[in-house]
Structure formats: C-alpha cells, structure tokens
C-alpha cells in the first residue's frame, strides 16, 4: 500500500469518527454528515487510483466508473425524490444495498480462493518459500516436521480468509434479506406473518447455518465422505457455500417477518449494525483499515443506538426480537371485554371546541405522516394561535415509524422548534390542557400501557392524554394501530372520534374554524 494511500485511509477513518460524533449533536449534525461524506469520497478516489495489490494497479476502470456513475444517479434520485414520510423505508433499502454489496464481495472472493488466486494464497506461497529455505539449511532429517509446520501455516491463512469470507456472506445476506422485508413491511406490501413454532424454525435455520459454516471451515481439505457422493470434492464444497447463502437469505426473511411494524425502527437499526460488521469483514479480508474502522464503528454505534431506541420504548431488545407482537396477539383478543361504545364528533363541533380552548395539544402519529398532513396541521396551528389559542405538539419518542420521525416531518412544515414538546414535558402540561387533538396516533396514547399488565405494550411510556379535559381523535377507522390492540382511550366519555383522512379532515377543520 502506498504511503499516500495509508494517509488517506487514516484521514478517512478520522472523518468517520468525527462525523459520527458531530451527528450526535443538533448544532453540528449537518456538518458532521458532510465531514464523513468527504472522508468517504477521499477514501474511494484513493482506492481507485492508488491501491496496488501485489504492485499492480487496479484495472477495469471503465466498469468501475460506470458502476459508480449508475449508483450515484440512482442513489441521488432515490434520496431526493423520497417523501419525508417514506424516509424509514429508504434507510432500510440503502442498508440492504450495503448488505448485498458485502455478500457479493464474499461470493467473488470465495471463487478467487477456490481458484488459488487470493492474497492469502500469495502469503501461503511465501511461507512455502521460507520453509523451503529452512529445509535446505536443516537437511533432510527434520523434513517431515517442517512440512507439518508449513501445512499448518498454510491452513491458518486459508481458514482465516475463508472464515472472514463466510462471515461476510452470512451477515451481509441476512442484512440484505431482512432490510428488504423491513422495507416491504413499512410500505405495506409485506404483512406481518407468524406461525406457531416460528422461533423454533428460526433457531433450526440458524443452527444449520452455524453447522454448515463449521463444516466448511473444518474440512478445508474436502476429505469428508459427503463430497464424494458422485460429485467432485470442489462441487460439494461450492454447494455448501451457496447453501449457506440461501439459508442466510432465508434467515433474514424469517428473522424480520414476525416482528411487529411498530418495532421496525429497532430492527432497521439492528440490521444497520449488521451491515457495519459485514463491511468490517471486508476490512479484514483486504487488510484495509478504513473499511475495518468504518464498519466496526457503525457496528458498535448501531448496536448502542438500537438499545437506546428500545429504551425509549421501555422494552428490552430481547423482548422486541423474541416476544414479538405477532406472538402475543392472541392475548388481548382472548380477553375481549365489553368496551362500550365510542362517540363521533361533527366537524363544526370539533372546530368550536378547538377555537374556544385556551390550550390545545396536538399529538401527531403515523396517520399524519401517511396523509402528508404536516403542512395543513401547521396551518391549523397558526389559525388557532391567531385566535389566541396556545398550541403545542406532544411528540412521543417512537411516534410514527422511527424515533424523530415526527420531528423531521413537522420541521419540514416549518413548525417552530419550541412548540415541540418531548414526552415528559408534554405529560406535565397535559393536565392543564383543554383539548387534545390526536392525529393518527394510537399505541402511543393507549392507556393499556399503564393499566393493563396483560397488554403487549404494557410498560411502554405513553402520552397521558386522558388527563386533558377533552380528547378528539382523528383516525381513518376504528381499526387497531400497529400493535394490533384495542385502545380504551377511544371508549372513554371525554373522547370523541373524528373519522377520515388526516389531511382532508384538517383542511375541513381549518375552513370551519375560519367561520367560527
């Protein structure tokens, strides 16, 4: 590696660390992103022009630049066109691309390895030469001992490389398949799906993956009778490798399928750190420090972020992954109690309630995001403020489909930062609030999380909207929210329902309030 390239990689690693650090503070976040991006650009250009494995420059520049160009065009288009509401899906998709990239690298390198063509082999050949020289010095007497040493050194290189390739393959494929499923779930094209014994099936698949990987690594000489089953040894070896690929993809799908949509952010964050580890495997493979540090940083930071997100929902990671909502769905359904009836409110009544309140708290949720209603919502807020009503927004940490999702949306609509209250602040103000307007939020205002120990969301901190004087809930229908459970709030006497699409409802509400 040329010394300039080493310095470039060093700079790249430092920018990643700095970038992450700056990204975790509101003031410097945007700059941090740019710092990391410029470090990345530098590292990519440096690799293209300065990387010289075994003294030879890289070739296939045409292909490389064509790939970079196509990727850039697709990436920029996708990132620019995506609606703010679809942001979580987008991040998941990009993450899947990274995972797929890592898996593809592993496949190519596996074939290289089979073709005796990798740097590991070159290193092994060096050992051969060294050992040969030693042999000459020692004479024939200790030949067999030396040959054993030689073989074991060779196997260390070979096994080490194979281990990293296999790890990159497994983690990359799981991350890819999982991200695609997460993407599908968030945009509604993949439904929650679980069957009894699913955890056992998952464990079996995972066990198979481990066993196959171990077989590959232990039996590097292809001596097991398994291989000689009518086919050549190399074919059997390849079959196991591609079997691993398929099983890993399957595991990725099975891993994400049963997890409830409300937990998707946590899963995406987890898969994000998986891809980081897969990238780090590449760093090991090519002795490439920038890939290694970048990958591991994301791997560990992503894991911590995942845990932080779980904490925001007051649940453990284990609970999210194993005690999935899908599994506990039967609980609340079995205990159906008579919840009484809910009452609807007319638009003009709602307009009057809001216009004559002193303090209104808006609780936005995924319904607002889906309906793209953030701008109308801001309009309503301005209108009410003109009438002397104090309007605040209560933001639950996991409202929407991702932590911070609502903040991003409302920021897009130019809602002032001071108006957004975090959960604790909002809960402190709710008892003095006259009217709460719940816009497409459900589980984050469900009192069952506080009162009902059998509820799957029991223990999750919620916005205690029932402390306010009046609650108006806008939803498209009485259908339960993402967690799939009924919400007692809707049946309480102080609650009234306003059915319809959030955007249309808000537009009509704005028109009504203007006439009040």
């Amino acid at each position, binding site marked *: 590696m040329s010394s300039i390239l080493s310095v470039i990689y060093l700079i*790249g690693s430092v920018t*990643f*660390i700095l*970038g*992450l650090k700056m*990204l*975790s*503070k509101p003031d410097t*976040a945007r700059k*941090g*992103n740019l710092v990391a*991006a410029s470090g*990345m650009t530098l590292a990519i250009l440096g690799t293209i022009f300065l*990387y010289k494995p075994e003294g030879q*420059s890289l070739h*296939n520049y045409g*292909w*490389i630049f064509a*790939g*970079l160009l*196509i*990727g850039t065009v*697709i*990436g920029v288009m*996708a990132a620019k066109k995506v609606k703010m509401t679809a*942001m*979580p899906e987008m991040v998941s998709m*990009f993450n899947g*691309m*990274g995972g797929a*990239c890592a898996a*593809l*690298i592993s496949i*190519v390198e596996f*074939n290289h390895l089979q073709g005796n063509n990798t740097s590991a082999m070159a290193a092994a050949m060096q050992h051969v030469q060294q050992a040969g020289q030693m042999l000459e010095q020692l004479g024939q007497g200790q030949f067999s001992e030396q040959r054993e040493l030689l073989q*074991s050194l060779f196997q260390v290189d070979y096994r*080490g490389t194979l281990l990293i390739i296999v790890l990159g393959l497994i983690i990359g494929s799981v991350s890819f398949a999982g991200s695609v499923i997460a993407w599908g779930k968030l945009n509604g094209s993949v439904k929650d799906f679980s069957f009894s014994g699913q955890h056992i099936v998952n464990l079996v698949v995972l066990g198979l993956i481990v066993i196959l990987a171990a077989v590959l690594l232990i039996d590097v000489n292809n001596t097991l009778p398994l291989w000689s089953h009518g086919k050549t040894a190399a074919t059997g070896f390849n079959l196991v490798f591609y079997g691993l690929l398929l099983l890993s993809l399957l595991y990725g799908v099975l891993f994400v399928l049963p997890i409830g949509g409300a937990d998707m952010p946590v899963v995406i*964050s987890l898969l994000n750190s998986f*891809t980081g580890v897969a*990238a*780090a495997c*590449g760093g090991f493979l*090519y002795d*490439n420090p920038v890939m*290694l*540090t*970048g*990958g*591991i940083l*994301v*791997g560990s*930071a*992503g894991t911590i972020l995942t845990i932080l997100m779980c904490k*925001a929902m007051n649940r453990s990671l284990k609970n999210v992954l194993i005690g999935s909502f899908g599994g506990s769905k039967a609980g609340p359904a079995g205990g159906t109690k008579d919840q009484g009836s809910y009452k609807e409110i007319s638009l003009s009544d709602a307009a009057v309630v809001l216009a004559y309140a002193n303090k209104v708290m808006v609780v936005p949720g995924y319904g607002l995001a889906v309906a793209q209603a953030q701008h109308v919502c801001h309009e309503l807020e301005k209108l009410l403020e003109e009438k002397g009503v104090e309007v605040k927004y209560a933001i639950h940490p996991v409202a929407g489909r991702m*932590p*911070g999702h609502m903040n*991003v949306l409302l*920021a897009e609509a*130019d809602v*002032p930062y001071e108006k957004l209250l975090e959960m604790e602040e909002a809960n402190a103000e709710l008892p003095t609030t006259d009217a709460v307007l719940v816009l497409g939020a459900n589980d984050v205002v469900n009192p069952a999380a506080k009162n009902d120990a059998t509820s799957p969301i029991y223990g999750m901190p919620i916005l205690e909207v029932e402390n306010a004087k009046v609650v108006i809930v806008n939803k498209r229908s009485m259908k339960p929210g993402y967690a799939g459970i009924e919400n007692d709030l809707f049946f309480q006497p102080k609650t009234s329902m306003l059915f319809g699409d959030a955007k249309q409802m808000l537009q009509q509400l704005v028109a009504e309030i203007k006439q009040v």
Partner: protein
Amino acid sequence: MEQVSVFIQQHIELIYVVILSVFLGIEVISRVPSVLHTPLMSGANAIHGVVIIGAIIVMGKAEPGNYLALILGFLAVILGTINVVGGFVVTDRMLEMFKNKKDKK
C-alpha cells in the same frame, strides 16, 4: 487451537483496532437526543457504505475473462454506491430541515 493462536498473532494489530473501535463507537453515540436518532441511523448507514471500497477492489482485480467476478463486482459497485451516495444525501435532506428551523429562531 494452535492455529487460532497463530491467526491471532498474525492479525494482532487489526484485532486491537477492532476492539478499540467498538469502544469508540459506544462512547461516541451514548449521549444523543432522541430527535437525532433517525438522522444518526441514516448517517451511520451511509458510513457502512465504505464496503464500496471492497467492491472496487474486487472489480479492479477481476481478470478480463472472469465474467462471474466482473458481473458480481459491477453489481456490488452499483449497490455500494447507492448505499453511500443515497445515505449521505438522505441524511443531509433530513438535517437540512433542522437547520432551517434554527435560522428562523
């Protein structure tokens, strides 16, 4: 076992880097407001796109006749680039909104 210790010896520097990076990652992230969780996840997502470097190396080393390596490598370069470019652009778009809000304050 012997082979494991040889492997560790051969890669001891990389292993140090891995362990220190793990702690660094934890330290860097541990205090972050929940508002920034989404942009941070997106930014970290872009950073692991560094796997693109591996794709470039694969591509650049591929023999002209090795179609498997060429095609898979090409695909890997495209996917990796989408990850990097898309990731950074999306993160910037999210953070841009936060910034606007600050200016108006």
